[in-house]
């Protein structure tokens, strides 16, 4: 080896390589400015910011404008009217109560089921690991509708069974109640908590628990001093998401509370936009909800930065399974109870109703036929249109979402801008905003443009609301990937475009597929973001179910089953590609 005296020619030639030129702008400043590497991700972020900011701004501006349409003047009258309205407070109360109760119940189910699957010897664990996630993909709205077939007073299937065989009163169960809303929300948000806690439960170093046992703690003391505190951050994250999402959900209260004139904040916004509409008051509610969302986002950020043991480190540990003994059957019973209530019963009810020409509250097997499906798929104009519209919006929206999400992730994970952390916060804001509030913002923003009453406005609302999900999933994968692989491609002489095409995209493909399927599932079933934006001709499946709800149970059930089949198909594909998006 030579001694290194004087400049080494190898070093000089390395410095001229394009990979390092971007880092040291002194090399080729002109190229850096216009390179697609900076331009495309930056553009995607700008679009994302616009999608967040415009409904925010439009809502805020509209909330401080009052007066007759066409003669609006700046005023705080909307807020004044809202704060004097007793119905606002009762809606707020119902929203908070249902949100909190649904969160508590979801946490109980999610934690218990995750523990059963991850840490016990309960039979059928691997099956339940999949089954517990099914409600995650099904539509809460369809769940609420099918629970009305099951537990409507005097007409529900379960009430009928109870009164036939146990001679209980026929209104033994009443799904049209605050309790009913809580019940259905809890069933459908349990998988969120489950997903949040099962990862840490599986990844936790079993030695942490072993150490407690060896040093004198019994099983319960170990759970109290070690396991539970270590699970707490994940549980709280899950609980926060469940609370924000379930409190902001529009469709379940619409199906279960509105028929009894019980209102939540989202259903109040919906009725304020119906004729005779009061956009000002609706916008005032929107501003308040958005403020709460921002508050939650900031609180979560502060909490996350404070706790230093966020990640329970792990490298493929095999956690010790707890031998439950006879309690295995109790665990199995809880698992079965959840799966039966969350999946099996609603599906049975939907099948019965959709096959019955006239639903009377009890299946008449002799008269069952596929007539409802025939109607919905081939004859009923509204239903057929809705199916086509939903498919268009879902396929197009998921594709646009994944495209933008990929570019945004690239900006967040690989960009060199100092704004990245701030952008990360801004771009994920819509995650906490109820769909109907965001829909309201988009409506106010675009109502006077040609986009109004087209499918495009629905598409924009969907992408604005759910894009952060795609960005997060893809970001997580990019982060896990690390930059070395790309840098070595650049060092080998590949351009940025070639690196993305040949290295990055193939490697993050699982996350892309998962994000696409996730967005597809959400767009097929979403109601809150579209209910204010649809017009004659641009109805989606869920909107059609709302419209048909008052006319024909059979058509609604058939439509719901068709939608469910689409979701189940996506779920199957999802299990095949199983990737990091669930954990992100």
């Amino acid at each position: 080896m030579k001694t290194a005296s004087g400049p080494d020619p190898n070093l000089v030639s390395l410095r001229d390589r394009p990979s390092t030129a971007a880092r040291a702008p002194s090399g080729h400043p002109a190229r850096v400015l216009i390179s697609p590497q900076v331009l495309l991700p930056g553009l995607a972020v700008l679009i994302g910011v616009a999608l967040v900011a415009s409904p925010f701004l439009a809502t805020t501006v509209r909330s401080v404008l009052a007066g007759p349409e066409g003669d609006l003047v700046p005023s705080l009258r909307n807020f004044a009217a809202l704060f004097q309205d007793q119905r606002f407070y009762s809606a707020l109360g119902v929203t908070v109560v249902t949100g909190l109760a649904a969160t508590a119940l979801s946490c109980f189910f999610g934690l218990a089921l995750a523990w059963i699957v991850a840490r016990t010897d309960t039979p059928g664990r691997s099956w339940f690991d999949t089954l517990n996630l099914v409600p995650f993909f099904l539509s809460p709205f369809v769940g609420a509708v099918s629970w009305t077939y099951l537990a409507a007073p005097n007409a529900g299937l379960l009430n009928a069974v109870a009164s036939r065989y146990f001679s209980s009163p026929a209104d033994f169960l009443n799904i049209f109640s605050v309790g009913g809303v809580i019940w259905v929300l809890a069933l459908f948000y349990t998988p969120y908590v489950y997903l949040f806690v099962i990862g840490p439960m599986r990844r936790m170093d079993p030695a942490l628990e072993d150490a407690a046992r060896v040093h004198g703690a019994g099983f319960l003391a170990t759970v109290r001093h070690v396991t539970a505190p270590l699970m707490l951050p994940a549980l709280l994250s899950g609980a926060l998401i469940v609370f924000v999402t379930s409190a902001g959900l529009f469709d379940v209260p619409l199906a279960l509370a509105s028929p009894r004139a019980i209102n939540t904040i989202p259903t109040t916004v919906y009725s304020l936009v119906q004729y005779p509409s009061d956009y000002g008051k609706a916008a005032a509610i929107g501003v308040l909800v958005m403020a709460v969302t921002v508050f939650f986002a900031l609180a979560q950020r502060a909490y996350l930065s404070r706790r230093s043991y966020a990640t329970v480190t792990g490298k493929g540990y095999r956690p010790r399974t707890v031998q439950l003994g006879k309690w295995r059957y109790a665990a199995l019973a809880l698992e079965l109870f959840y799966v039966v209530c969350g999946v099996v019963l609603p599906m049975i009810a939907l099948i019965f109703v959709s096959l019955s020409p006239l639903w009377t509250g009890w299946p008449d097997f002799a008269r069952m036929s596929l007539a409802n499906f025939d109607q919905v798929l081939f004859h009923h104009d509204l239903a057929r249109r809705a199916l086509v519209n939903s498919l268009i919006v879902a396929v197009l929206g998921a594709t646009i979402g994944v495209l933008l999400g990929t570019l945004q992730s690239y900006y967040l994970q690989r960009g060199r801008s100092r704004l990245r952390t701030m952008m990360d916060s801004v771009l994920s804001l819509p995650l906490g905003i109820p769909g109907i509030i965001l829909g309201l913002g988009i409506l106010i923003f675009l109502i006077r443009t040609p986009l109004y009453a087209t499918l495009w406005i629905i598409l924009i609302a969907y992408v604005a609301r759910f894009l952060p999900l795609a960005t997060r999933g893809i970001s997580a994968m990019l982060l896990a990937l690390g930059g070395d692989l790309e840098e070595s491609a650049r060092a080998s002489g590949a351009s940025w475009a070639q690196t993305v095409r040949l290295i990055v995209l193939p490697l993050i493909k699982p996350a892309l597929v998962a994000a696409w399927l996730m967005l597809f599932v959400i767009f097929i079933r979403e109601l809150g973001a579209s209910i204010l934006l649809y017009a004659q001709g641009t109805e989606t499946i869920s909107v059609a179910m709302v419209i048909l709800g008052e006319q024909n149970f059979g058509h609604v059930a058939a439509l719901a089953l068709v939608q469910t089949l689409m979701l189940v198909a996506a779920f199957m594909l999802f299990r095949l590609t199983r990737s990091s998006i669930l954990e992100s």
Partner: protein
Amino acid sequence: MKIKKPKGMTSAAADGRDASSFVEVTGLRKSFDGTMALQGVSFEVTLGTTVSLLGPSGCGKTTVLRSIAGLETPDAGRIRIGETVVFDSERRVSFAPEKRQVGMVFQSYAVWPHMTVAENVGFPLKIRRVAAAEISARVADVLALVGLEGLGRRPATNLSGGQQQRVALARALVHEPRLVLFDEPLSNLDAKLRDQMRTELKLLQDRLGFTAVYVTHDQEEALALSDNVVVMNHGLVEGMAEPRELFARPATPFVADFLGFDNMFPGEVSEPGKADGGPQPVEVTLGDGMKLRSFWRGGEPLRRGAQVMLAFRSERVNLGSGASPGSAGENRFEGSVEASVYLGAYQDCLIRVGALQVRAVGPGDSTFEPGERILVSVRPEDCIVFPRGKNDNDERGTMNDKRQGGKT
């Protein structure tokens, strides 16, 4: 350090046990999903001493340790700690881990990330409902002992790897357990820190005199820290000896190989000598007719034609340019250098001697050119022999001979 006597447990006196063996592990068997992890492991630990379980990964040493702690339930066997039989498959006795009154240091440290250093260390006392004032006093004492004085209020995750290791150690000692278990405690530290911690652990051991079982795959750790070393392989005890005995005269080819006898050749006894009460001098002829003198220290004298393995360490091979006379009775051969790897203070050499390839360590300051003729010598007392089965060159084949080969 005083040993606490747990209450309400079966008395050893009734079993007529030898009081000098504080821990007794008998006939431990365990299989995981059909593969045998332990195939009958037995050993004893004398009060106040440390026994190391040494072996390659997957040999079952950690399973033995976890069985003693109660974290693993063996399929068969018996474990006694002090006067207490904590596990007996025949009598269906199996104490929960928390009832076994031990301390344990885990390979991953297992320092609880949601607690401070003091909370971690004080945990065994807190669980035993010791008064808060006494806890803080004893935690302060033990933190000082492991060199962490004043760090009690730090979050445990705020420490370096070496410091976390000390927290784990302090936690395992604070309640003055009757037995301390170490599961490869130093394997996650970098080499320099490992050497330092090894010395500190030794000092602590001498000072506190606790009884310990120490699991490691590192022979230096085992030799440095234990009064007795149990070498394990494939779920079986290959041999048990004091460190010096183990290092100088390993009982089986496997132990020899594991402890650095990196030259090992099959051969047969061509000239058995007379034992005369001491080791029996033997001459061994290796495959290609090369003859080496050695000593056999087993029970039965070896006969002419006995199939053996002959082994010696590369450090004990002398390399000379040919002129040096060498001491009388040495095994001397001429060979040629095949390769040498310079490692600073010394260099690793591969020497071709006839059909054999001999590993040797040469001084760092001389040069060995490939092809160079060189004189190789090794003293008979540095060579060891093991009997082996007739058509069996595999070291595992001699596993059953370990009792003959053990110390007398």
